[in-house]
């Protein structure tokens, strides 16, 4: 009860009161008691007020709305259907049925309102990441202000248990943060000085002092909230279809009912009461509410369920596209591979591995290139820069430096050749980037650096089968082919410049099976044009990257490729529920309709008053509505990932 809106609570009490008054009347009318009391022979001035009271208590607002709508030139909505059905029943003398239909209709309205409210709340609860305040340091004092008031560059303090209010960089302190609300990832991230904190996460263990990098409006949390809030505005095609369908469906039903009620009695001299009641039953059963509500509700649930797993789908239309995906194109670096280079092989020729590793790292210690960083990482120890002299970078080749009095060359084969160092051919077949080291004109060995394949990349490709998977990469053929073979990707195109990637995607778009969609998965860096060209653009590892959030249709908050498969499964499930509801509602409605018409044709002649199926029809209608709405809420639950 506490979650009902004011209006819903009022409706609940109205139904209760009307039900209490109506129940004895219903019992008298439908049990032998009624015959005992000669109920059907009671004068009109007794029965009419008796039945009108609960009817009006339950349905006065429906009547009012229907009348108002007629004045505004808008007829043929569900209020109108219910009004003519019940008022018609009154005129035909079926008071009990009129009351019953109205009561059931209102029960349906109430239940539907509650269900919609409930799923709306559970989706907003998922997105409960809005920070309420920020502790900002101003003139030596710590003030609690709203995050909107904090300027970029100000110092904020985040205590354990608080939400990170703005995107910021840690100045001092160490902590770990819970990113589960953003990414669905349960493992907390360890952060220390110099690391970036993403707003919307929860600070877990330590107190940290940070410098804000963005105003609140541009912070990750604000962007995500905006995205989720707007997601329900982009409508799916089937959603629009249902709206259009209802526009023609309702008038069509009214016309059919009119014909049913008028033609047999007027032209064939059949019993008026029987056919009018049949016509009214038609009106009751054909109310399209179940469809009109459940379809958008399902899409909403699907978006919410995906958000729970760190997958932001920017609109219901993208759910439809995702469900149709038959081709998945990956931009290799940053999606299937981590994009961080690591030293995988150290092959010394004339020294220990440690010495070789030291020389390579020392020579590259002034460079910030990813390869240099990976060399420094491989050495693990701190490098004493005072021992490194006269570092000379030779662009495209490598570095020449003086280390501990040794003349050291670190770079590719071209560098070795330039200085006349004879490279010893390695018996291994190297796939990654090979860095050679020469000391005092002699060859000292080489290290191999590789881009690492992400742990769940293989599982992702397997989960995506039998869809076609393609890798596009700017990398060398040997590297791309090796990764593709290892992951069992169907197709690979290597050595592509960014512009060529767009061309390749266009070609793949032309090739894809008819009626299917193509998804492009990128890490959001430099691939905005491709993301927007594909049917579905999926950006990965978007935490903190605005460009990706803007350009993509689907945003994976963490950098795990498995999210692509999860997103598609979510979309497929949502789509399936939508069609289940559409088919189920229409089947029941059409079935009941045919049954009613058939019984009417079969039962020739006069029908007893009080022996008709109008109440039953209303019950069927509300039942369908409730089931469809309950089915729709299933979309909130995400299917489990495959192993």
């Amino acid at each position: 009860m506490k979650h009902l809106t004011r209006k819903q609570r009022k409706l609940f009490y109205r139904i209760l009161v009307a039900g209490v008054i109506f129940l004895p009347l219903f019992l008298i009318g439908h049990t032998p008691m009624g015959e005992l009391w000669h109920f059907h022979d009671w004068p009109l001035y007794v029965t009419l007020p008796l039945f009108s009271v609960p009817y009006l208590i339950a349905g006065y607002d429906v009547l009012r709305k229907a009348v108002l709508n007629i004045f505004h030139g808008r007829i043929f909505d569900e209020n109108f259907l219910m009004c003519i059905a019940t008022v018609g029943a009154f005129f035909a003398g079926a008071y009990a049925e009129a009351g019953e239909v109205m009561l059931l209709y209102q029960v349906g309205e109430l239940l539907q309102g509650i269900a919609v409210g409930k799923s709306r709340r559970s989706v907003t609860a998922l997105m409960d990441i809005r920070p309420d305040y920020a502790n900002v340091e101003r003139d030596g004092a710590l003030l609690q202000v709203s995050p909107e008031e904090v300027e970029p560059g100000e110092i904020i303090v985040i205590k354990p248990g608080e939400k990170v209010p703005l995107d910021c960089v840690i100045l001092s302190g160490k902590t770990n943060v819970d990113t589960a609300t953003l990414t669905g990832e349960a493992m907390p991230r360890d952060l220390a000085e110099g690391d970036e904190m993403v707003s919307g996460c929860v600070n877990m263990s330590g107190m940290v002092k940070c410098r804000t990098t963005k105003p609140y409006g541009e912070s990750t949390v604000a962007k995500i909230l905006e995205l989720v809030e707007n997601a329900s505005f982009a409508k799916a095609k089937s959603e629009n279809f249902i709206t259009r369908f209802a526009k023609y469906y309702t008038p069509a039903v009214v016309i059919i009912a009119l014909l049913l009620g008028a033609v047999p009695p007027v032209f064939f001299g059949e019993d008026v009461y029987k056919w009018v009641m049949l016509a009214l039953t038609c009106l009751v059963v054909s109310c399209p509410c179940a469809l009109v509500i459940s379809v958008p509700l399902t899409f909403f649930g699907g978006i919410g369920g995906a958000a729970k797993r760190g997958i932001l789908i920017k609109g219901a239309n993208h759910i439809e596209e995702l469900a149709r995906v038959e081709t998945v194109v990956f931009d290799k670096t940053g999606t299937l591979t981590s994009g961080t280079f690591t030293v995988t092989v150290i092959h010394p020729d004339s020294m220990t591995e440690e010495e070789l590793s030291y020389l390579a790292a020392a020579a590259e210690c002034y460079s910030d290139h990813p390869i240099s960083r990976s060399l420094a990482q491989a050495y693990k120890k701190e490098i004493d820069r005072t021992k490194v002299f006269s570092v000379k970078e030779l662009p495209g080749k490598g570095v020449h430096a003086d280390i501990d009095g040794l003349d050291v060359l670190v770079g590719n084969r071209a560098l070795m050749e330039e200085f006349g160092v004879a490279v010893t051919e390695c018996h291994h077949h190297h796939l990654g980037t090979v860095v050679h080291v020469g000391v005092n004109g002699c060859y000292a060995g080489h290290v191999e650096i590789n881009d690492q394949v992400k742990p769940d990349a293989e599982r992702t490709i397997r989960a995506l089968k039998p869809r076609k998977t393609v890798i596009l990469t700017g990398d060398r053929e040997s590297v791309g082919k090796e990764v593709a073979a290892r992951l069992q990707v169907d197709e690979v195109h290597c050595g592509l410049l960014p512009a060529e990637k767009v061309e390749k995607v266009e070609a793949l778009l032309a090739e894809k099976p008819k009626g299917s969609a193509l998804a492009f998965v990128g890490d959001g860096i430099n691939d905005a044009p491709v993301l927007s060209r594909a049917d579905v653009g999926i950006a990965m590892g978007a935490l903190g990257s605005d460009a990706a959030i803007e350009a993509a249709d689907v945003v994976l908050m963490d950098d795990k490729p498995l999210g692509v498969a999860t997103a598609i499964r979510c979309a497929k499930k949502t789509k399936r529920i939508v069609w289940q509801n559409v088919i189920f509602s229409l089947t029941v409605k059409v079935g009941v309709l045919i049954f009613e018409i058939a019984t009417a044709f079969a039962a020739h002649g006069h029908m007893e008053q009080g022996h008709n199926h109008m109440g039953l029809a209303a019950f069927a209608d509300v039942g369908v509505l409730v089931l469809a709405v309950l089915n729709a809420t299933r979309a909130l639950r995400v299917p489990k990932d495959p192993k």
Partner: protein
Amino acid sequence: MKKTFVMEDLDCAHCAAKMEEAIRKLEGVNSVTVSYIAQKFVLDAEDARFDEILKEAVKICRKVEPDCRIIVK
């Protein structure tokens, strides 16, 4: 200019679609969305006449669903 408003007591999906359709036909409206599920109303309209268009839109909403209120901040 694009603005989002909260709606209260919008309780039929039909009505939301009708409001949307009617408001879209107003002059100066670039795009409009009435979301029954989110209980929100997004209006994108000409800057100069925004307030005027908004007033007109609120009137339309009231006509379609007399109980529904758009909370204009």
